[in-house]
């Protein structure tokens, strides 16, 4: 039930890696991080951080394009290669918008790729849905457990420059 890579496994030659989406360095409270100055001070997009050894294995250099995909969706961005990232893990700062600098995905019929949360999925914890948790009782669009949509597994592969 939790496997989010069963179908996409058959699609391509990417490397299976852990995927986490921590809080954005550039997103303070609910302010937009996608204004010009903030984008200039980052890299003009929402890059994928990857360990230098994984990058070497996949033939990725800093600022190369990468495609991340699994059964939930696809995310196309540039890579940042750093020693700060543990091996076999990639991360993307969370809650980006698709409005800026979001290319198309060559793997999925050259349609516009998603944002970082396209790869994750909110899961509800069944015991919380059963109710009786203090004053809380689950009701659709009213009260639910917080989403655990911050990490999953993805395939990572290098791509040439995608279309917009």
């Amino acid at each position, binding site marked *: 039930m939790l496997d989010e890579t069963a179908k996409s496994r058959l699609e391509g030659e990417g490397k299976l890696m852990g995927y986490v989406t921590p809080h954005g360095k550039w997103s303070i409270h609910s302010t937009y991080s996608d204004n010009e100055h903030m*984008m200039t*001070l980052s890299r003009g*997009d929402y890059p994928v951080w990857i360990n230098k050894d994984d990058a070497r294995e996949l033939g990725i250099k800093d600022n190369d394009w990468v495609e991340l995909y699994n059964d939930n969706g696809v995310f196309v961005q540039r890579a940042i290669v*750093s*020693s*700060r990232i543990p091996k076999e893990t990639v991360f993307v700062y969370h809650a980006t918008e698709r409005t800026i*600098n979001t*290319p198309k995905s060559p793997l999925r019929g050259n349609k516009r790729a998603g944002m970082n949360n396209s790869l994750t999925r909110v899961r509800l914890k069944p015991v919380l849905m059963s109710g009786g948790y203090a004053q809380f009782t689950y009701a659709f669009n009213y009260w639910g457990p917080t989403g655990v949509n911050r990490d999953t597994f993805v395939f990572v592969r290098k791509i040439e420059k995608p279309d*917009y």
Partner: protein
Amino acid sequence: MNVRSQMSMLFHLDKCIGCHTCSVSCKNLWTDRRGAEYMWWNNVETRPGTGFPTQWEDQEHFQGGWKLEKGKLKLNLNSRTMGLLKLFYNPSLPDLKDYYEPFTFRYEDLFNAPEGDDQPTAVPVSKITGEEMDIETGPNWDDDLSGSNIYANNDLNLEGLSPETKAQLHELERLVYLYLPRICNHCLNPSCVAACPSGAIYKRGEDGVVLVNENTCRAWRMCVASCPYKKIYYNWDSGKSEKCILCFPRMETGQAPACAHSCVGRIRYMGVLLYDADQIPAAVEVPDDELVEAHLETILDPHDPDVIQAARENGIDDGWIEAAQKSPVYSFLKEWKIALPLHPEYRTMAMMYYIPPLSPVISTIEEGLFRLDLTEEEHTFETFDRLDTARVPIKYLANLFTAGEEEPIRKILTKLQAVRVYNRRKSLEGSVDEVARKALQTAGLSPEEAEGIYQLTTKPTIEDRFIFPPYHREMSIEAENDPLKHSGTTGLGYIQPPKRGG
């Protein structure tokens, strides 16, 4: 003794969180306009890294600052004759590749894109040509990167580090990075001023702010090449050079510069320093290992009656002398001696100072494994013996702040650690015990000094951090003009009536 006054800023690097609020507030205030898009009068670099413009410290290429030639001070860029002969040929000038091509996004596509089966997106476009572009570099490209084969490895300050230490900078749990905020250093011996063929750059008398007179600037751009910190930029639209002005219109009205005022980590302190201009020629011609000492020697004690007397004779206002006596920069720099200028080996006598950062958690090594928690034995937290294995290599800090001399860095870090021990013992034991006293003794600090460093580091209010003297602009304007004509304005270095109406 020729006493002059200088507004100086001090950066407490331990407190910098790398949020870039300073850069953005500076950008919004001064350089968010045509021709200035690529300028960052204030920027924050992640170190180890290559900085902005890329590898600006590479003076073999950029030819910034001064050099000693047969014991005499020479501009790195050129001599007077060569400067004249090569007036139209300046290969050491940084170009757009060394900075970056400023970009924005075609936001209107989000509204105007033709109907299709896909959602539109705003593509990156160049702010110079307006054409679509690939973003390949930026003013903060190596942000938070830390270990990186391309960026961190090419940091010139890694020179002289052992191969093991360099390898450590790539190792998870042992790597390290620090933030280095930079503005114009408003030097005492500015090479930009010396290099300008038009004599358009000057150091303002009252506060030492280095300014470009835009009416005299003839776009030779020798200043851009000659500034070793690469903090003069050429405005391609107006054809004039521009630089950080230390927000003097704000200082003249008693407000801190925008970068300092907006600083989230409250790392910036500002105050007046009195210095002896007569000592400068000698101080810039000493060997590398005496540079910092000679530099700090020129900063005078504002409590010394002789200095006060000489300052008054030079026309320095009593308000300025009083501000110098209260200056937090003076306390950190001269009383406690824990601050240093950036790259003294450029011999420009930078007047912005840095307190080098302590390392993050000091890890212990047990059976080949790194432990990040500290064992509870005696002396483990009192880590003087571990300075050499500190996560921020001492040699690296030395290359940044002391022309490679490790001893001054060691002394400062020992003091900062002693303050840490002092406070830890005080809160754990309830009093200053033997361990704390011993730590302070090793570092050469008295309990009062430790308390002072602690208070001004962690608990300063805005009034403690920024001590501004009364500028008395009305007097300096009155000397030349009818002050009523200038009511409500501050000096821009030259007089130009405001354009109003149609």
